[in-house]
């Protein structure tokens, strides 16, 4: 399990845009499960009460980034890593998570070609699947 502090060692994202709170399961380079708690006072709730779907995409991509970065750090603790969110395909939203809910973000690498990684992702609230699809991440490491 990884806390927010450990996530910040792997990702360059900070407060307004660090959209995951915790990693509960991780298999470096393969798959991971992250958590996002939606508290009422977060900046994106100003004006409406739902978690914007595009930010849900971003939080899934960040879990993907942790999965890839932890693999690189496992091989070389000093490695500097750089990930980029490059695309989305075939992503469906069933509903938007609301204030007070906890979103479980599940990602799994299904394909990789050179520096591009394709993830199959799903987002759950409790046991209800609220969104799912494929994300593309580019990931480079310099050791």
């Amino acid at each position, binding site marked *: 399990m990884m806390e927010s502090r450990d996530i910040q060692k792997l990702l360059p994202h900070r407060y307004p*845009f660090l959209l995951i709170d915790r990693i509960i399961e991780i298999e470096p380079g393969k798959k991971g499960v992250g958590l996002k708690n939606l508290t009422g006072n977060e900046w994106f709730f100003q004006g409406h009460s739902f978690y*914007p*779907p*595009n*930010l849900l*995409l*971003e939080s899934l*991509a960040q879990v993907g980034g942790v999965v890839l970065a932890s693999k690189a750090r496992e091989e070389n603790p000093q490695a500097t890593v750089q990930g*980029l*969110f*490059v*695309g*989305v*395909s*075939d*992503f*469906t*939203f069933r509903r*938007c998570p609301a204030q007070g809910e906890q979103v479980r973000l599940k990602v799994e690498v299904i394909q990789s070609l050179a520096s591009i990684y394709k993830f199959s992702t799903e987002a759950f609230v409790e046991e209800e699947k609220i969104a799912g*699809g494929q994300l593309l991440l580019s990931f480079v490491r310099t050791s």
Partner: protein
Amino acid sequence: MPGVMTLEGMIQSALLLIDELYSRGKVTGSLEKVDRLKFKKPVVPGDRVEFQVQLISQENYLHRFKGKALVEGATAAEADFTLKASIREVGFEL
């Protein structure tokens, strides 16, 4: 600018377009599906982003769009997405 925010820009432009299609101020849209989203170039401070959206098809309340975010004529991001419009009933018509 984070890539997903350019997607949000495209969505909001499309929502304005949906708003024009129906009687103004009575319709809300929600994102149903995103496909073929590609972030081609990073958008940096100082850039002016132009969002272009085109309605591709419309079935019942599902509207399919093709969107583009342009920075000085070059594509920074593009996507196909579907928005579901719902008609909000507010107050009475007199």
